[in-house]
């Protein structure tokens, strides 16, 4: 108890120094948390992917499409349960900064593959019946204040022209990992327009979404699908939904690695700052530590005082930093920059990493000053007086 009292009194002895050190820690822990959350957000799609779903795309590149009639041949392959398709739409809602993922999908069965999207049956039916209908995720609807019945104008980029969609359903996620920032419309509606303007681009689709009976057979079924279209005009590449999503992440792997490195560099810098603070503190109090030893306190007790002070500083800064990370992440998620991520939530693992960083900062910052103060000779320490 007395030990804790002495630590807390020492921590707040040099108020300005403590305030500046804690501020630095708060900034570092928040920055670390946000950068880790960016990395998590990058992998959010892959993490929420189902192992029972496959994605088939053109073997050359995702930029190239495949004929929609492939679906019938895929259905006949052993192990395939349901085949649907989707096409990246890539339109702009008012401003390019209002980015959100948009997919033109087979309205008849696409949502049968995604039970994690919780859609009211009557709203789903209304969507299916309206060729200009759209289904949007809850986060997206909340972000723009949309409600069922709103007409959303979207300017096409891949599919040029000004399009209008009526929101017929808003879906919720089954759990926190389900992404709810997407916008879905009828592929048929888009396809009809394309066929009129560019007949050769009609009846072409970006990816097939396939539900299989047995996830353990995903590799065999993928091979069978790709074998079916070997030597055709549009050879296919089939992989699990997770592998497909990770493929996107891999394209920007260098950025992810850079973000990770920067997040740890931030912690390393604050570690040096706190270590410097503790070294200054210990140097200034060397006579006090010598006095404690004269009174009979052990070198270990002196080291523990410095260690405790560093830990209090680290946890104080980390505590505020962790608490601030949540509103900061939420603010970022709702900003135009945050809209680039389908999901931007601080994960439990990020919080644990922040705590681990705080412990590391405290321990490492106290190591050298604690060791030196414990070892300093009493007579040398007492000479620092006067």
């Amino acid at each position, binding site marked *: 108890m007395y030990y804790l009292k002495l630590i807390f009194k020492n921590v707040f*002895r040099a108020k300005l120094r403590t305030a500046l050190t804690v501020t630095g820690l708060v900034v570092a822990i928040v920055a670390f948390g946000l950068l880790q959350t960016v990395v998590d957000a990058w992998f959010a799609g892959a993490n929420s992917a189902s192992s029972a779903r496959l994605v088939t795309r053109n073997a050359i590149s995702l930029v190239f499409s495949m004929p929609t009639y492939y679906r019938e041949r895929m259905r006949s392959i052993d192990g395939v349960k349901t085949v649907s398709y989707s096409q990246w739409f890539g339109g702009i809602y008012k401003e390019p900064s209002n980015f959100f993922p948009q997919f033109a999908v087979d309205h008849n069965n696409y949502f049968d593959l995604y039970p994690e999207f919780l859609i009211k049956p009557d709203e789903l039916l209304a969507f299916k019946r309206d060729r200009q209908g759209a289904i949007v995720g809850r986060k997206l609807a909340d972000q723009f204040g949309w409600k069922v019945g709103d007409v959303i104008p979207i300017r096409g980029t891949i599919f040029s022209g000004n399009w209008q969609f009526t929101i017929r359903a808003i879906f919720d996620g089954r759990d926190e990992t389900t992404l709810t920032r997407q916008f879905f419309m009828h592929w048929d509606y888009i396809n009809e327009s394309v066929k009129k303007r560019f007949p050769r681009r009609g009846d072409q689709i970006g990816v097939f979404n396939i539900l299989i009976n047995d996830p353990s057979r995903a590799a065999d079924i993928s091979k069978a699908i790709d074998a079916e279209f070997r030597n055709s005009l549009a050879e296919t590449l089939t992989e699990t939904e997770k592998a497909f999503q990770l493929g996107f992440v891999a394209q920007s792997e260098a950025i992810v690695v850079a973000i990770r490195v920067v997040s740890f560099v931030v912690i390393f810098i604050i570690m040096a700052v706190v270590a410097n603070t503790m070294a200054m503190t210990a140097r200034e109090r060397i006579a006090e530590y010598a006095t404690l*030893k004269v*009174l009979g306190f*052990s070198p270990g007790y002196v080291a523990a005082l410095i260690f405790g002070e560093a830990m209090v500083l680290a946890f104080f800064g980390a505590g505020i930093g962790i608490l601030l990370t949540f509103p900061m992440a939420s603010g970022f998620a709702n900003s135009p920059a945050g809209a680039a991520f389908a999901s931007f939530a601080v994960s439990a693992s990020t919080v644990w990493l922040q705590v681990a960083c705080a412990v590391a900062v405290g321990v490492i910052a106290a190591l050298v000053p604690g060791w030196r103060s414990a070892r300093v000779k009493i*007579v040398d320490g*007492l000479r620092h007086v*006067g």
Partner: protein
Amino acid sequence: MSDTLVEIKNLAKSYTRGDQDVPVLRDITLNIDRGDFISLMGPSGSGKSTLLNLIAGIDKPTGGMLRIDGEDISKLSEGELADWRASNIGFIFQFYNLMPVLTAYENVELPLLLTNLSRSERRERIEMTLNMVGLSDRMNHYPNELSGGQQQRVAIARAIVTDPTILVCDEPTGDLDKQSASDVLNMLKELNNTLGKTIIMVTHDAHAAEAAKRIVHLEKGELLDEGM
């Protein structure tokens, strides 16, 4: 019949600087009786503080024998010495060496934390000791709220609260005005006379040294003579 508390025989202390041994104390032989009050005097560099540190167990001799209350403390390990100091030595410094973040009460409580006394027993002792040094109305004051003389009285209270065998004082009046110095010396004399505390005091001040029953002079690391 004398009751020798501190037995010092052929005591030597030297420091190593580079390849050289620098002797600080040479062949010191001195006995101090229980209940004695002794002043160690000498010019700067004479080795008086080093001798005091050796007797207080905060430094170790390089030769000779140093026995206190029958125990050869030069043979104790660092940890054993720390325990020995806690129960046998009360140290009074020139610059008080109080913890600035602790109140007078908390400063006096520090050495008691190393004992098995309960909180209420500690409180009783601290209040009694602070009362003895005339600071019962300053218990909750921090050192920077006290005068130099008052701070030294808190330091004296801290030194005697565990009822140590020996009080070791290193220039206890060196940082005080005349009146405060006189108060502190009177307090030490009283502790010696009424409680029978053995006091060993280093001082430059001949007037302060007169408060002791014996004065021992040191020069260039050697014991010269004994006054009074």
